[in-house]
């Protein structure tokens, strides 16, 4: 939002807007944001969202640590991130203002619910004086409304208790913001009717509040600088679109991948933030043949998955970093027995319990190395919410083809963020049906395909291929237990070779943007894709010789990556950790890469990466 005209009959057209809804955990900000997102998607804008909520389920009301936020970036052009600083901040109480005001752009619009600025709430937020009275808000265009009071008035006919009535204030606010940005209310009305089908008076009260907020926008006189806007449709590639979050995409990718492999997916999982919604989503897809098992702990979850794979299904487990740590020994068993297994790690802040609801990329080395023994397995990473669908399928393809556990890394930002996603047609995917060994002739359980080095997959229930496997080292030729020194050397080497040569079966590394040589290559992986992409794009537009490569295959690293790294004078690696990919790349390619590390539980801002690129290249003598 660059300029703000005063209110006029004409809506001002904006290219892009970032709105952050912020309030108490109990204020329904996530629902408000989600509904605004749905409506925005239907308006044909490109968008990206970032929900940011506390770990506490019901943090004490009014406190700064109980503030829940939902940021949406929508535009008439292609965008990839939820936006850096908001243009518009909706603050439902003093704590929300206190936490979020520092992020609001100078000159940005601030909508505050004055009804929540009571002495008690101000104290809980740590305000000695009411910020609405002082100069602190002078740099912003402030719209002060007693939303609490306006909401109560709007739902008066429904004779709800004050407490119940006040619950609709998020819908009143949504109605007003929808009016301001020219959004349709129809989908939200339909959603409310469905959600409160059993409590029609609550549904109607919320709809009344929504409409009242909208009507308020139409009729009220706003102060100078507050207006109404429109954001034209984005020029998206033709196709049918939907909104998708990373965890939904991952779950759906699992169902699709298992269908392509022609085997039944059996999920063993244990609830953990931020991965639980994968379990929830798959538990509700039983008609697709998905078996879901909520195990007693993380270890049981992965063990059940391994048992299912042994018996001829596709075992998989979804978790986050602490869960991966607990599963490590069992994952080693799957490596040793060479069974297909999908481990989905939705990374969160660590170490230990860390920041459960915040995002981080700090499980990279755990994924690649975090097991006892020489224990290699393929590690791949999704880069956008929609990419989770494709990478889940890819993980299953690799697991089944190479008889190996595969780790799929996503993170809290991908898990919960939504983006418009062009829906693919399932018939465009190449099936990769699992092959089971049924021929007893010459059978031993560790017979290998000479090309893929994958062992055979014999399934219990098949006559003639009875066999015993386990975590003890196997003889290369017979599959029986072996403590032979040379055999262990040989088996360790063949397990490593099997995983290493997967590099031949995945796309070679290319630049995502820019030339394949130049001054600076920015290398990222995972959810930093959007921020890096936009930062590089901006710098290139300013004439800087910078390129962007994004690694989706962490282990083994793709072919061509080494050459690419050596084609640039400098390599910059932004990561949401204290430097992990950088260690892999330095070790593998002896490249003097530099890190840009953000370990704040928050995604990179485009501006942060852009600033790093510029400071890097400003020291370069111009040619």
């Amino acid at each position: 939002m660059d300029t703000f005209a005063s209110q006029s009959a004409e809506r001002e057209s904006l290219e892009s807007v970032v709105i952050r809804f912020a309030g108490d955990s109990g204020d329904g900000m996530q629902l408000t944001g989600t509904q605004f997102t749905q409506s925005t998607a239907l308006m044909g804008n490109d968008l990206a969202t970032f929900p940011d909520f506390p770990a506490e389920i019901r943090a004490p009301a009014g406190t700064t640590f109980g503030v829940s936020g939902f940021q949406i970036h929508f535009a008439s052009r292609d965008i990839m991130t939820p936006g850096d600083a908001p243009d518009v901040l909706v603050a439902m109480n003093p704590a929300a203002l206190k936490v979020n005001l520092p992020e609001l752009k100078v000159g940005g619009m601030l909508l505050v619910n004055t009804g929540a600025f009571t002495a008690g709430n101000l104290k809980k937020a740590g305000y000695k004086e009411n910020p609405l009275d002082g100069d602190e808000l002078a740099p912003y265009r402030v719209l002060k409304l007693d939303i609490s009071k306006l909401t109560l008035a709007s739902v008066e006919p429904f004779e709800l208790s004050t407490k119940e009535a006040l619950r609709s204030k998020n819908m009143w606010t949504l109605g007003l913001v929808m009016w301001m940005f020219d959004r349709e209310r129809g989908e939200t009305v339909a959603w409310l009717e469905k959600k409160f089908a059993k409590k029609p008076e609550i549904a109607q009260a919320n709809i009344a509040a929504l409409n009242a907020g909208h009507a308020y926008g139409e009729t009220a006189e706003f102060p100078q600088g507050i207006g109404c806007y429109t954001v034209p449709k984005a020029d998206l590639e033709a196709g049918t679109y939907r909104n998708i979050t990373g965890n939904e995409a991952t779950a759906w990718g699992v169902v699709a991948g298992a269908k392509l492999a022609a085997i039944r997916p059996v999920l063993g999982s244990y609830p953990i933030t931020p991965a639980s919604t994968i379990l929830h989503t798959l538990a509700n897809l039983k008609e697709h043949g998905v078996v879901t098992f909520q195990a007693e702990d993380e270890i049981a979850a992965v063990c059940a998955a391994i048992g299912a794979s042994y018996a001829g299904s596709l075992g998989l487990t979804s978790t986050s970093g602490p869960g991966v740590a607990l599963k490590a020994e069992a994952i080693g068993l799957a490596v040793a027995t060479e069974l297909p297994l999908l481990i989905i790690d939705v990374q969160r802040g660590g170490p230990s319990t860390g920041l459960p609801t915040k995002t981080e990329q700090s499980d990279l080395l755990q994924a690649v190395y975090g097991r006892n023994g020489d224990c290699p397995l393929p590690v791949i990473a999704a880069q956008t919410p929609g990419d989770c669908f494709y990478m889940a399928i890819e993980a299953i393809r690799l697991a089944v083809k190479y008889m190996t556990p595969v780790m799929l890394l996503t993170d809290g930002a991908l898990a919960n963020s939504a983006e418009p996603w062009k829906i693919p047609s399932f018939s465009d995917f190449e099936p990769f049906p699992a092959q089971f060994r049924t021929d007893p002739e010459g059978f031993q359980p560790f017979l290998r395909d000479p090309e893929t080095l994958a062992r055979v997959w014999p399934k219990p229930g098949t006559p003639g291929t009875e066999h015993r496997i386990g975590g003890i080292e196997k003889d290369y030729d017979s599959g029986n237990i072996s403590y032979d020194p040379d055999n262990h050397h040989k088996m360790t080497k063949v397990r490593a070779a099997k995983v290493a040569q997967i590099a031949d079966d995945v796309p070679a590394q290319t630049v995502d943007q820019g030339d394949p040589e130049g001054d600076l290559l920015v290398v990222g992986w995972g959810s930093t894709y959007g921020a890096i992409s936009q930062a590089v794009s901006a710098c290139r537009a300013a004439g800087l010789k910078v390129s962007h490569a994004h690694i989706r295959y962490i282990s083994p690293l793709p072919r061509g990556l080494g050459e690419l790294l050596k084609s640039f004078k400098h390599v910059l690696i932004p990561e949401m950790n204290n430097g992990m990919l950088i260690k892999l790349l330095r070790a593998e390619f002896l490249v003097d890469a530099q890190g840009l590390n953000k370990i704040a539980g928050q995604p990179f801002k485009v501006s942060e990466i852009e600033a790093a690129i510029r400071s890097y290249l400003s020291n370069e003598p111009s040619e």
Partner: protein
Amino acid sequence: MTPLDPPKKLTRKDFVSDQEVRWCPGCGDYAIVAAIQRVLPKLGSTRENTVFVSGIGCSSRFPYYMNTYGFHTIHGRAPALATGVKLANPELDVWVITGDGDGLSIGGNHFLHLLRRNVNLQIILFNNRIYGLTKGQYSPTSLVGKKSPSTPLGSIDSPVTPAAFALGSGARFVSRAIDVDVKNLTAVLTRAHEFKGTGLIEVFQNCPVFNDGAFSHFTERATATETQLHLVHGEPMIFGKERDRGLRLRPGTLQIEVVTIGENGITEADILVHDETNRAQAFLLAGLEPPHFPVALGVLFAAPAPAFEEALLDQNRQAVELRGAGDIDALLRKGHTWTVGDDS
């Protein structure tokens, strides 16, 4: 084999693998593996449909000696892994092999949850009251005062009674046998196999190297009639060489006492009749210990309930009935969608 060939009648030998057995000479495990290899043909089991899943420990080497499918997994986790096998293919006949350390210490959590879920499989707990494979440390079933390399002054923590733990976990089938008592071991193995749900068989197994004679106070043949009570559903709980001693509830209490028929006006009618569907009674029986009581052997408790994996997979069938078989394209287009440009 053509469909006209009569099915080959399997014998013990068909279930013996070609692997050299690596247990210590005199180990109770030999008797157990032999009993199972003998009983499987009688149960109508087939090699291809039978899966042995074990954890870690001496007993967990078991699957290597069976010419069936087998999975030697990791310490304590066999119940979880076996649950996964049943979820993938409920038709498989699964036996879990575990020990007192594997099942009750590192794997105690999984043991509990397997039993309460009632997954349809058999679990044999080889209880020798010691860690054998790691060379003789005390285990969660070792008696207080057990001197071992890790407890040179004697262990101080109370042991767990596996059958009582199982009953408390909600197990639906709890039985006990002695390793070398082929007749009774075979009987409980058969009953556990017939049982639909998790069939627990605790075997008192002698470790001649690290804990020799741990159970000899009730397993010695000479005194067995006085120290063992063999339970039969519907029959009075009578034992003793003269078959004149029995159990009854001490009047006015929930405690069991030993009485002698013919003394103090006690007749056979006063003796408790074994009701294997009575969980409370099974608890009392699980806790009986020499020297004051005989050890209760056989089926302590058997109360069928739906098997976990069947109920779970039934939800999948119901979902298909209700919603129709899943379609990926429909899934991806569920909810709000919108079309940009010409997507005809």
